[in-house]
């Protein structure tokens, strides 16, 4: 039995109309009951034909390269100067003042805005070129170094936000203000889900990290119908809220209850012909299937040792970044459209050398492993992987210059990388000035990044719109251009 999870056509009201499912089809599904659902059904995403266009988009705007995204969000603002953007000039000028002609009146946050001096600080880490592409990386990223020929490093990202809340919201929703749908919600709305037994947009947050807060609006649906919002998978027995039956209720018991519900609803439908009743039946059935498909998808215990070794030992610790990366691969295999990871802790206002090293240790191996693993399974071509945070960090130190220096928020340039579906590997795109302060060439704005991501999925960012409050909104607001030079 196939029940289309996204059969409802959206009206611009945000209320669902359930007119998509035929009555005959519904009655068939009720007639079959839930008994016909086999576990095998759950593993198999819909066939290609069935998967075609489950969202509002009738056709792809462009030829899609990627089918899905894994976004490894590094929250807090990783220092580009100490990871991807090699600036020997800063080492030479270490301790000297940031020249005014470089700063050009750029506003500073309230944290370093009152500093009497802004001493430049070179990266304490060693940079080398790697791979055939000769991509520069600091020695904090030894594992990423092994996959540089598969990734495109963008060193010329920029944003307008200088604080975390607005900054993260900007990347995830296209606006610094709360209220807009997140990128995953847009994709869910536009393309629908590839797997009828799992949510199309799943979020995982590294546990016990703390640091700058995350907010559910980052995976919220904004003004889109709330069914498009991301579902946060938690580590532990209930990856999805309320997934597990209460004590004393087993699968058979639950099935009996659902059969009763079906009969009650069928009777009501017969009487009132209201299609929303049909939708609800489908949702109960999907929930029942998810009670089996989610534990199956999130059960890492059967992964072989060499996979754990690839992702790093943390992968055995549920909720860690490596475990979430491994989980992301499993969800990608099952056709989840948008898998969003968050790893907090990149906000090194002080203690950067130690703090950043720890962050890299927690994320470097698993991020690289994800690329390797997807590649060896032949999935990298169709899976877009994005790694990056909400802004960069200053080339000068916050507070007094010391060994244990920190860097303040910096919106004018930062680095991210992308890999896989639709992206050229072994590319370094964009340049910053020798100070690592301003963009020298090929700037990529937040909206450009979003346009590029949508492009790889076959979406013209100007055409995926939703009318609300009298205006056609889109993820990229009224801006954005796909960065063609990094597209494969």
């Amino acid at each position: 039995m196939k029940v289309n999870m996204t059969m409802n056509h959206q009206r611009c009201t945000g209320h669902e109309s359930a007119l998509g499912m035929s009555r005959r089809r519904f009655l068939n599904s009720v007639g079959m009951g839930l008994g016909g659902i086999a576990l095998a059904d759950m593993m198999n995403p819909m066939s290609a034909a069935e998967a075609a266009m489950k969202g509002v988009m009738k056709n792809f705007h462009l030829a899609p390269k990627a089918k899905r995204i894994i976004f490894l969000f590094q929250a807090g603002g990783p220092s580009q100067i100490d990871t991807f953007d090699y600036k020997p000039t800063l080492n030479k000028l270490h301790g000297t003042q940031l020249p005014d002609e470089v700063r050009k009146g750029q506003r500073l946050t309230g944290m370093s805005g009152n500093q009497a001096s802004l001493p430049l600080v070179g990266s304490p880490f060693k940079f080398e070129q790697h791979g055939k592409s000769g991509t520069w990386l600091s020695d904090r990223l030894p594992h990423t170094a092994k996959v540089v020929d598969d990734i495109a490093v963008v060193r010329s990202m920029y944003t307008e936000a200088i604080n975390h809340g607005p900054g993260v919201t900007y990347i995830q929703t296209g606006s610094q203000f709360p209220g807009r749908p997140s990128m995953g919600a847009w994709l869910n709305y536009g393309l629908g889900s590839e797997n009828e037994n799992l949510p199309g947009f799943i979020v995982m947050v590294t546990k016990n990290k703390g640091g700058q807060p995350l907010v559910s609006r980052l995976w919220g649906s904004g003004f889109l119908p709330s069914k498009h919002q991301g579902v946060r998978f938690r580590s532990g027995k209930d990856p999805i809220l309320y997934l597990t039956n209460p004590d004393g209720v087993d699968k058979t018991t639950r099935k009996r209850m659902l059969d009763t519900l079906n009969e009650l609803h069928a009777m009501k439908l017969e009487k009132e012909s209201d299609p929303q009743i049909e939708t609800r039946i489908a949702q109960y059935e999907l929930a029942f299937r998810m009670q089996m498909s989610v534990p199956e998808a999130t059960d890492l215990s059967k992964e072989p040792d060499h996979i754990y070794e690839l992702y790093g030992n943390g992968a055995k610790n549920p909720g860690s970044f490596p475990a979430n990366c491994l989980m992301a691969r499993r969800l990608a295999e099952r056709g989840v459209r948008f898998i969003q990871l968050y790893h907090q802790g990149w906000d090194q206002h002080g203690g950067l050398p130690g703090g950043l090293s720890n962050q890299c240790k927690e994320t470097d191996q698993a991020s690289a492993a994800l690329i390797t693993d997807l590649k060896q399974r032949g999935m990298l071509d169709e899976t877009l992987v994005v790694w990056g945070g909400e802004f960069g960090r200053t080339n000068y130190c916050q507070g007094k210059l010391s060994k244990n220096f920190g860097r303040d928020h910096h919106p004018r340039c930062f680095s991210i990388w992308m890999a896989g579906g639709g992206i050229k590997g072994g590319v370094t795109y964009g340049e910053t000035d020798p100070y690592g302060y301003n963009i020298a060439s090929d700037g990529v704005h937040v909206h450009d990044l979003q346009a590029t991501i949508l492009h790889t999925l076959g979406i013209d960012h100007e055409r995926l719109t939703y009318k609300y409050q009298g205006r056609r909104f889109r993820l990229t607001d009224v801006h954005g251009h796909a960065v063609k030079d990094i597209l494969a």
Partner: protein
Amino acid sequence: MLNFVKRSANVCCALMVVAGGWSGSAWAEDKPVDFAREILPILSDKCFVCHGPDAKKDELRLDSLEAATVDLGGYQALNPKTPSESELIFRIFDKTDPMPPEKAEKKLTDEERALLKKWVMQGGKYSKHWAFVAPKKSEVPKVGDDSISEVDRYVLEKIKAKGAEFAPEAEKTTLARRAALVLTGLPPSLELLDSFMNDSSEKAYEKYVDKLLAQDSYGEHQARYWLDAVRYGDTHGLHLDNKRGIYPYRDWVVSAFNRNLPMDDFITYQLAGDLLPNPTLEQIVATGFVRMNPTTSEGGVIAAEFQAKNNFDRTESIGTVLLGMTLNCARCHTHKYDPILHEEYFGLFAFFNSTAESPLDGNKYEYGPTVKAPQHYDAWEQWYAMQKEEASLLHKAEEHVKQKGDEGLKKRWAEADKEARIAMLLNPREPFAITPLHQGVIKLQNDMKAAEKGYTTTLVAKELPKPRKTFLLKRGEYNLPSGEPIEPDVLGVMNPLPEGAPRNRLGFAKWVTSRENPVVSRVWVNRVWQRVFGEGLVRTPEDFGLQGQQPTHPELLDWLAVEFQESGWDLKHLLRVMVTSRTFKQSSAWRKDLKDPENKLFARGPAHRLAAETLRDIALVSSDMLDPTMGGEGVKPYQPSGMWAAMSHPASNTKKYVRDKGERLYRKSLYVYYKRTSPHPMMTIFDAPSRESSCVRRSRTSTPSQSLGLLNETQRVELARKCAERLIKEAKTDEARLDLLFRLVASRKANEVEAKVCMQLLAGMKQRYETSQEDAMGLLTTGEAKRDENLDAGEVAAWTQVVITVLASDAAILLY
């Protein structure tokens, strides 16, 4: 995008050939085109993106007659003298260089072209967009049945036009449940239900409605919609998302609805209660509305930036909630569609730019200015009682002064303000000392002091002694102020600021509540209609502008808007008009004789899934577990562990969710703690908004998460087993128990099919749990409430499963 360009005389001749043989007079004979309803939506939708109010100078504009008739160098967009010469007509039919251009997102249809042509040929008259013209009552249509209400006659007229009639009336029990849910957010209690069912008098239903309107749950339910609109939350909303002390405002809102405060006062107090002469505590607390925007104190943020951002939020929310206008666009530039200039946005902005709070919240609970206010609903009730008592004492004192004939006293009394009069009553040397008034005032003062000891802080609005200057911000950037300071001012397209109204929040309130204001009462009645009938008369309640939807029943909307104003902004009256209508009483079954899936004719009753709060409250009342305490600090029922901690800043004082115990677990859902960055999951799963931004219409989705929540969530299981105990104790047979269950959630007994399938389930479950005591106990220890050990565990467990199932079925979770 291409611009209109001057065409040559040759092309002009070609046009005449193509268009062939029009003459102005022939067009004039046709039925006149209604500009506001037929033409403006087309222009707005297809043309204004380039040729609207924000078009550059010297560019062709179509948004007003003046702009469209500008001589653009030998030609005009609209040529009133020779309509056929109008550039508009030429270009929309031009094959080689058409308008809208080839690559435009939206093109004209043939019908639209024909309509535009007809309009131009009839003289191209402009009129205002309907929502910018103050509503008037039109003549109520004659539909052959004068016994039905005005509302019904407007609705029936359109149904009849489709050759149909009203749907049959819903069954009495259905109607009883529907009215109770719409007015109070709960099904009727069994006593109320029975009294209505047994009342065969002619006015039985009206009496029933009045009883519902008099329940405390009425105010609670109506408040919920308002709290969504004003984005009420118990936390600051950004960054640390720390606790914010503002729940006395929420309790005031409930109380205002229950006291049926006229809605114009309701609005005025909230916008500007502090600026009223001698404001009362209630009027000041109401200004919490102005303080409802999310705030931050994130390290490093720039105060000036958040002064602007906070006020953008405030201005735009007021646009949504009161004006039904999307002002957001005009923050950065002149509105593309609606006639709102960039400067005008900052005119509105200026009304709210002089409040005294710091732009950063300091992560403080008492984010000043604050006042001390009643700490829960009963304390408010007491406050009102004391106000009444005080007024009564002063009134009696006045009488006393009049009778006494003491000229000195008379004079002193006349010159004294309220406080001085109270002081006189308290003064043992004044002549009042020998009257009971003296003792009365002493007692009242003591009572007030005692009550105030329990009061708690709440955020309020206060004006700076010297107004903050407002400038137009280029592109909406706080650091790009431009030009001269902008005075507070209202939108030019609407009514002017009433004469003598000050240019501050109070003046703004007078403008908003003025009879001349074209949008506010319409927006208000539309939202009330939406909550009663499931959908608004305007289906974009947040946008009455040019891009919003046209009303399905424009004359009805206007009739209601004026009726509402004429009734003294009496919400209970408005609701009574709606729920006693024949329109409301219709059966909600889908009709085979009409093709109207979205119910735009309102030719069937409302049917939709109930709101998150109502779903939980139904379970609370059916299990008889509801704690009726009203108001106070937000409550924290069961919630899966770690939900707050997972995302909070380590320094946040809301990173740890400390679940309540005992009665507080069973409070009404209105009082569930609203942490804006992570509201309760059983609320958000069922489409409750995050309260970070204004929401005047919740989405209504159907998702698997909802199914899981309904069947597995701790509180639902707990309430189901308490309900099971109740059924077993209150009814003797299983059949009677099932009937009781259905009466509690569906206001009627189970029908034959329901009884059959539920009894089958019960039999199966009895078998299952009687053989597995351990499973039964597992189920019966879900949640904190103690189980009744006198009852058989197997039986209670079996009934628990039946209750969970019925509570998750459409009989319980839908309005129908």
